[in-house]
């Protein structure tokens, strides 16, 4: 308190000085009341909150944006990035013409970038596609997509790649963002996406953020949390994190835990709930079953890669064989004095699971006592153990209290985790045990980092294993439904799951993918262990296309760069983290020759005839009922029966279909706004509406219902949370009072259908016997804590955690071109604890080497600021291509979700001399 008074006094003093200093300086007047500004409704370009925006344009340019007061997500407010949505369009180096590496007038991988026409760009792109396809078949080509794809772009990509090229090598950067959340939703509920909605913030009693620095990453949700905390004295905020951050500043209780021990904390909490008799027995008996899965599932690393650096080999060896630490032995109920060795496999079936009894579940939890977990999990070596223990007990008090409601939010701290799927499932474990799931104000709630990670990557299904509306390529019934809606011959779709985005990078290095199109993402900056992938891109025989709005790090390693239209320069739609679908109109025209991604895909599809792609194709490893091993059959003769000709193009078959052409342009819903896709394609139909309406058909009638396109543009609609049935959105899924799909009278009905027939067994494994159907049930998983693949040791003695900052979004390609955001945070700093810095002779502002088994880079040291790391850990944000931290990070993934763990690896830091 004294400190505060002192600060205040100091400020008052400063204030007096200010009076003198400021004399005669007129306040910079606000720009005059804007004349001729036309306001149109839009959505923020950045995170998964999905703030409603009003976009002002004047004379063909976006001049400003403001928060949409009507939109319940953000009620008129935006964060510092959101307010910059106008400026992000106008960086000086916007890409305006295609750029191709050339030497002596033709494409050359070693050439410099020269401006070319779209015609030439597509000619070379197609020739290179055919070269790769001829050599390797459909698996030799790949598309890296995005959670920033509009719904229509993602849907067009799925059709082009999966239906057109018969390849499942389409995977989004969202793999790095929330694949673990998806896997856990499917395993727990049998259907993807949160049961709750943002209204839970105002309805709950306690918000718990787990690996979610909401104050910086979702500032407008944080505004709602803080608002509620200030108006309601009994409201509580707990922040669980591996370092003190901006969210800690607003929290009531901050719990700093050691990386990876979140799994142990959940098990302690569950053990407490059971011990205290706080299990909601009725809820569990009616709506839940208990489940377990295999334990030694590896770390998603490559085994025996010939390209591995010598220093990487010890971490990769743990992939195959682990010797349990003392703590791991205790956690498994084994003798800690004995040696326990376990062989692991990355290629097993980590997703397998089976039913267990409540007694088995309880047995799994038994080792996770307060004493054991507190000693294991305490993350700040300078915090007394008793203080840490007391906070764990306080947290248990919250969850175990039957009267208080909780919402547990998480983001990348959980998802980017070698046990990401498990730790997501543990959140549901506790909420289901206590009956605090799918009820207003109560639920475990996964947040997303990208504006349409939900709406596009997940719902449209731009993952290597997915089809629209939670369907999968390796499910014959799902393929049949998709082939029906797309009017494709039977067996056109490829039943073999494609490469996920991490695997695509590995495939590139191994020469298994030789043609890659990157859309709306910057994967060569955002993928861990990046030295491998930039080397593969530049030094091997392959062809890389990057469509983007600015030159990015990925475009530096590309062979062809295509200029894209940006958010308000095209028609689009996003789906946010609470299942809210929001569509927008195009406001202004894209600059130069920049084109919408929908146009790019449609135009490129004109260069493929059916005879080229729908004949027999080799697919190594393909094994599926009704298919010859390793082959996709020719479907050309059945295509003829559908009225297609061998020289029909993919454009005719996939995009300009008779049904699509019925959506005429101009359309009254356009309200006189332009459509550049229509203009550039020279057509008289409305591709974005046609794509959306066709996509909608996938979700109708089974809990994924979207409203018709035009409804989202009604004045009184600010997006709608699906399922939208009879024009009504759904706030709480699975709850019969709110969700029309939940059986009336059930109270709660976990009606998701996937993975709902299981064998029974013990923690050790399933037993032979019948598979039990589980209609209406959710699964409470027991998941053990384990050591991560790499921890600090004598050589690499510090943990490295990476993440974002409030002012920059992802790889910074938009926000770093906004002058005031760049000036606020001009570069990625290395956050170090003062004592760790001192030990290494480092002061604030010094240049330091950061080095891991995988590479080394330089960064400037900071000892203070909003990120306060405990001793033993350093933090570096990843937005800055000049501080290329992903050259350092480890490409270990959750073996189930294949999502990379960017939150922990071992590094050393030294002073640059």
């Amino acid at each position, binding site marked *: 308190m004294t400190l505060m008074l002192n600060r205040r006094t100091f400020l008052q003093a*400063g*204030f007096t000085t*200010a*009076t*003198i*200093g*400021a004399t005669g300086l007129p*306040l*910079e007047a*606000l720009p005059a009341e*804007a004349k001729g500004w036309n306001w149109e409704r839009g959505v923020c370009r950045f995170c998964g909150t999905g703030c409603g925006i009003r976009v002002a344009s004047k004379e063909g*340019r976006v*001049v*400003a944006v*403001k928060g949409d007061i009507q939109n319940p997500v953000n*009620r008129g*407010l*935006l964060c*510092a990035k959101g307010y910059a949505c*106008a*400026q992000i*369009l*106008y960086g*000086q*180096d916007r890409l305006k013409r295609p750029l191709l590496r050339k030497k002596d007038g033709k494409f050359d991988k070693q050439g*410099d*970038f*020269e*401006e070319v*026409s779209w015609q030439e760009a597509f000619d070379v792109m197609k020739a290179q596609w055919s070269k790769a396809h001829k050599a390797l078949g459909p698996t030799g080509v790949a598309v890296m997509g995005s959670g920033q794809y509009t719904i229509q772009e993602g849907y067009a990509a799925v059709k082009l790649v999966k239906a057109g090229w018969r390849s499942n090598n389409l995977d989004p950067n969202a793999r790095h963002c929330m694949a673990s959340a998806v896997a856990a939703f499917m395993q727990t509920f049998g259907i993807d996406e949160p049961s709750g909605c943002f209204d839970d913030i105002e309805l709950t009693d306690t918000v718990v953020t787990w690996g979610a620095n909401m104050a910086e990453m979702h500032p407008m949700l944080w*505004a*709602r949390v*803080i608002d509620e905390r*200030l108006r309601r004295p009994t409201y509580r905020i707990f922040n669980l994190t591996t370092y003190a951050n901006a969210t800690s500043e607003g929290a*009531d209780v901050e719990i700093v835990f050691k990386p990876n021990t979140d799994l142990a904390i959940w098990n302690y909490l569950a053990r407490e709930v059971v011990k205290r008799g706080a299990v909601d027995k009725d809820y569990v008996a009616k709506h839940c079953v208990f489940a377990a899965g295999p334990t030694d599932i590896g770390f998603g690393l490559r085994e025996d890669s010939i390209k591995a650096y010598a220093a990487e080999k010890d971490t990769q060896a743990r992939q195959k064989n682990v010797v349990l630490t003392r703590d791991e032995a205790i956690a498994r109920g084994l003798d800690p004095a004995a040696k326990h060795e376990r062989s692991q496999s990355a290629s097993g079936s980590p997703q397998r699971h089976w039913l267990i009894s409540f007694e088995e579940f309880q047995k799994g939890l038994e080792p996770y006592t307060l004493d054991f977990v507190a000693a294991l999990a305490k993350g700040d070596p300078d915090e007394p153990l008793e203080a840490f223990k007391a906070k764990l007990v306080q947290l248990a008090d919250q969850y175990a209290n039957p009267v208080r409601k909780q919402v547990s939010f998480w983001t990348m701290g959980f998802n980017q985790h070698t046990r990401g799927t498990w730790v997501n499932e543990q959140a549901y474990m506790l909420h289901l045990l206590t009956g605090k799931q799918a009820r207003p104000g109560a639920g475990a709630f996964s947040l997303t980092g990208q504006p349409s990670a939900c709406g596009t990557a997940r719902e449209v299904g731009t993952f290597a294993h997915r089809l629209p509306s939670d369907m999968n390529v390796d499910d014959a019934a799902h393929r049949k439904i998709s082939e029906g809606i797309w009017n494709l011959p039977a067996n056109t779709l490829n039943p073999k799951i494609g490469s996920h985005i991490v695997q695509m990078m590995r495939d590139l290095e191994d020469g298994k993918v030789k043609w890659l199109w990157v859309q709306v993402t910057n994967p060569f900056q955002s993928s861990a262990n990046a030295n491998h992938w930039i080397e593969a891109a*530049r030094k091997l025989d392959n062809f890389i296309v990057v469509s983007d709005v*600015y030159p990015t790090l990925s*475009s*530096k*390693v590309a062979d062809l760069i295509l200029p894209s239209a940006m958010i308000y320069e095209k028609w689009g739609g996003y789906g946010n983290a609470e299942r809210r679908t929001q569509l927008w109109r195009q406001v202004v025209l894209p600059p*130069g*020759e920049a084109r919408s991604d929908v146009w790019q895909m449609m135009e490129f599809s004109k260069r493929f005839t059916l005879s080229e792609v729908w004949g027999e194709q080799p697919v190594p490893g393909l094994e599926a009922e009704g298919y010859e091993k390793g082959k996709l059959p020719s479907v050309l003769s059945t295509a003829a029966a559908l009225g297609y000709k061998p020289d029909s193009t993919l454009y005719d078959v996939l995009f300009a279909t008779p049904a699509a052409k019925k959506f005429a342009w*101009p359309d009254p819903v356009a309200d006189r706004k332009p459509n550049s896709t229509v*203009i550039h394609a020279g*057509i*008289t139909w409305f591709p974005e509406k046609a794509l959306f309406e066709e996509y909608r058909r996938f979700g109708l009638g089974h809990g994924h219902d979207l409203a018709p396109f035009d409804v989202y543009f009604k004045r009184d609609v600010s997006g709608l949370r699906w399922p939208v049935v009879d024009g009504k959105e759904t706030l709480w899924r699975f709850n019969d009072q709110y969700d029309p799909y939940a059986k009336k009278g059930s109270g709660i009905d976990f009606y998701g259908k996937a993975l709902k027939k299981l064998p029974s067994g013990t923690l050790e494994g399933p037993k032979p016997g019948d598979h039990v159907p589980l209609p209406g049930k959710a699964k409470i998983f027991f998941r053990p804590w384990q050591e991560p693949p790499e921890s600090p040791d004598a050589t690499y003695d510090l943990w490295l955690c990476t993440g974002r900052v*409030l002012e920059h979004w992802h790889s*910074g390609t938009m926000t*770093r*071109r906004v002058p*005031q955001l*760049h*000036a*606020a*945070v001009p*570069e990625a700093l290395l956050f170090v604890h003062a004592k760790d810095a001192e030990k290494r002779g480092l002061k604030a502002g010094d*240049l330091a080497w950061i080095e891991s088994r995988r590479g080394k880079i*330089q*960064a400037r040291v900071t000892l203070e600021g909003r990120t306060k790391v405990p001793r033993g850990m350093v933090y570096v944000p990843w937005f800055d291509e*000049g501080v290329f931290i992903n050259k350092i990070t480890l490409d270990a993934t959750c073996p189930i979700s294949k999502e990379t763990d960017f939150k922990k690896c071992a590094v050393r830091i030294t002073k640059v001399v």
Partner: protein
Amino acid sequence: MSRLILPLILCAAPLLMAGPPAKPVPDRDLGLSRTSVFEVPAPPLFKDEASGPGEKALPKRINKEYPPVIPHSLADCVPITQGTNLCLDCHAVAGPKKKGEATRVPASHYVDLRHAPDKKGAKVVGSRYVCLSCHVPRTDAPPATGSSYRP
């Protein structure tokens, strides 16, 4: 003009307007870091704004909707916690602004748009309590690239 002709003309327009092709660009010259992807650059040193409140002229507003950038040092103003918000001590002062006083929090910040959108309250509303969500600090870093944005 028929529906078909207009799009065709608009389609051709950018091609007609495009200037002569630019010189070949090596990849190192693209993007915000003018280095090869294989190089390890030494990042420059930037300094946080060090001036006290009122010592420097207010920077120009970006547009009438963009929250003003914080012109002074934050060193003595943060953290903002549930109990302490030193920004408000100076900026949320009642009565008309006198010469030399801090910029007043505008009336908009007293309206609770979620719960009571029609009336102005006595306190800055909770949803606007974390000033740094919208108002950014500054350093001495020059822009990373030019901008053709104008309000």
